[in-house]
């Protein structure tokens, strides 16, 4: 974590190479998040590319170097969200055959449900289960009590449980 903070500081000072290193560290999370949202490689890469550009441009707005992970995830989530809304509108207009999307939907069922949760809960889930953060770390990162992290996760889980109950799987 300390190493990362040092990198963030260098990146904030305009060191593009430190920034690249950070991107490499978050590559899995970023790309898989984007893919979970957008369901195809092309769009996921585009989202990551846009997030790279925006975060580079806005890196001086990172308030606390320890927040970098959440900050980056948030930028990407916003881009993914916008891109998905845009493509939804297009889907409606063009009445695209959803056959392909449906099979993808099944494959990433759980992921799909999670991307329907409120943004702050998604952030938590991606960080906790994907970047392997502990509740404690998340609490520190987001500057909220550990109890809040727990209750937010709990809330997310409850929604997921409801979903499965509706489906009659539990």
């Amino acid at each position, binding site marked *: 974590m300390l190493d990362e903070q040092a990198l963030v500081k260098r990146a904030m000072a305009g060191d*593009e*190479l*430190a920034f690249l290193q950070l991107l490499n560290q978050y*590559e899995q999370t970023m790309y898989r998040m984007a893919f*979970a949202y957008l369901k195809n490689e092309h769009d996921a890469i585009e989202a990551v*590319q846009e997030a*790279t550009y925006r975060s580079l441009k806005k890196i001086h707005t990172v308030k606390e170097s320890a927040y970098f992970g959440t900050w980056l995830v948030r930028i990407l989530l916003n881009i993914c969200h916008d891109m998905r809304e845009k493509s939804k509108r297009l889907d409606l207009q063009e009445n695209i055959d959803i056959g392909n999307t449906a099979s993808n939907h099944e494959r990433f069922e*759980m992921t799909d449900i999670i991307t329907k949760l409120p943004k702050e809960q998604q952030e938590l889930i991606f960080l906790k289960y994907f970047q392997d953060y502990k509740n404690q770390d998340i609490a520190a990162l987001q500057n909220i009590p550990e109890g809040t992290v727990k209750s937010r996760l709990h809330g997310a889980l409850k929604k997921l449980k409801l979903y499965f109950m509706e489906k009659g799987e539990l």
Partner: protein
Amino acid sequence: MKQVKKHDYDTFVKELEQIDIPHEQLEESYIKSIIRFQKEKRNRQRKWQGIVVTCALLLLFVTSIRISPAFASAIAKIPGFAPLVQMITYDKGVEDILHNNYYEELGLSQTKNGLTFTLLGVIADETGMILPYTFSAPFDVRHLKIKEIELRQNGRVLPAGMSYSGYDEKETFLIEEKLEATFKDPISYDNAKFELNIQFDDEKQTEFTIPFLLKKPIAKTKIYELNEKMSFEEQHIIVKSVSISPLRTGITIVLDPNNEMRILGFDDIRLLDEKGEEWTTISNGLTATGNLIDEEETVFMQSNYFREPKKLTLSIGKVKALPKGQDFIEVDFKQKKVLSKPPLPGLKVQVNKRMVTINVPTSYKDKNISLLGTAIDANGETVYSNSASFHRPDENIIEQTETYDIKEVANPVRIYFTHYENFLDGTQTVEIPLK
């Protein structure tokens, strides 16, 4: 609740893990974004500021380049750095050179017939020079070849080996590469005026002559005489000397003519300092001068010139050797016949017109190595090879096809091995007597 929780998140993580990550495309996308960002920034900056940024970056990436090859390859795509960045990834000595600010920036540009050549800078020592350059045109230049290169000192052509790499397969308007000059003998830099002359093979045979002066002092090569004997299964060698300059470390090794086996090479030569840090042989570029068949060779290693270690140990192991008499093949090009080959496991030889194709077993993973060396005809004349190509029929075999110039050859021709993975036991070390 607990169980539900576990099940759900496991599913989630599993789902995410199914998603393959297209690393290369992502790297490409990072670079595109950085270039986009830089362009916008540059428009707002004065030119001199841009230069300051360039120098800083050059120093910074030295510290971070070792992180991962993928990362290094990403940086290599940032305009302006490619020629040297590539070197850092495989040569620690070059990394030290940049760290110690031994690189001299030149930035000399010329434009002729629509072509622009820029000599970015130079790394010079008594043994050679590395000259990173860029070359651009308003059209695709990937197939534009260099016709001739000369490095001149005070008007005279320097006796130097010049090497450079081939270009990209992809369409490109800009080439970022480097020339590497290796001097036959150490040169003196006193009052030296240099000129790089480079001619391209375009329609107009465009030629650039770029004069340059070096302002920074040139590092003196450190030479250590050793004359230490080492033995591997009764086969003897003498480590004559070690010379360390910024670009390379040369280890001069002499073979004992009375050996029963002919030593072909050393697959494990390394230098270790008191902290256990290692420097190995040069993996890309000029690896040795001389020829072991003449019983003396200088093997080049990555330089540790700038480190000033307290203790330096040379370690030699994995010595490749074949019994004398079993270290060559004999062919007749006229009859298209292999007259003799030693009974080595897995060895296959074929002759076809001017070509000799040889297969040997290997444990080398990603690299190829030349299997055949000196060729001598019935009159004792050297037979020269025009080209060599390598192929891996499977991962455990190296196949080499060597094409010879056989116009005036007197058959039969004896071709000596330069590589066969028959290793002598043991690793020997010797301490370098640092002053």
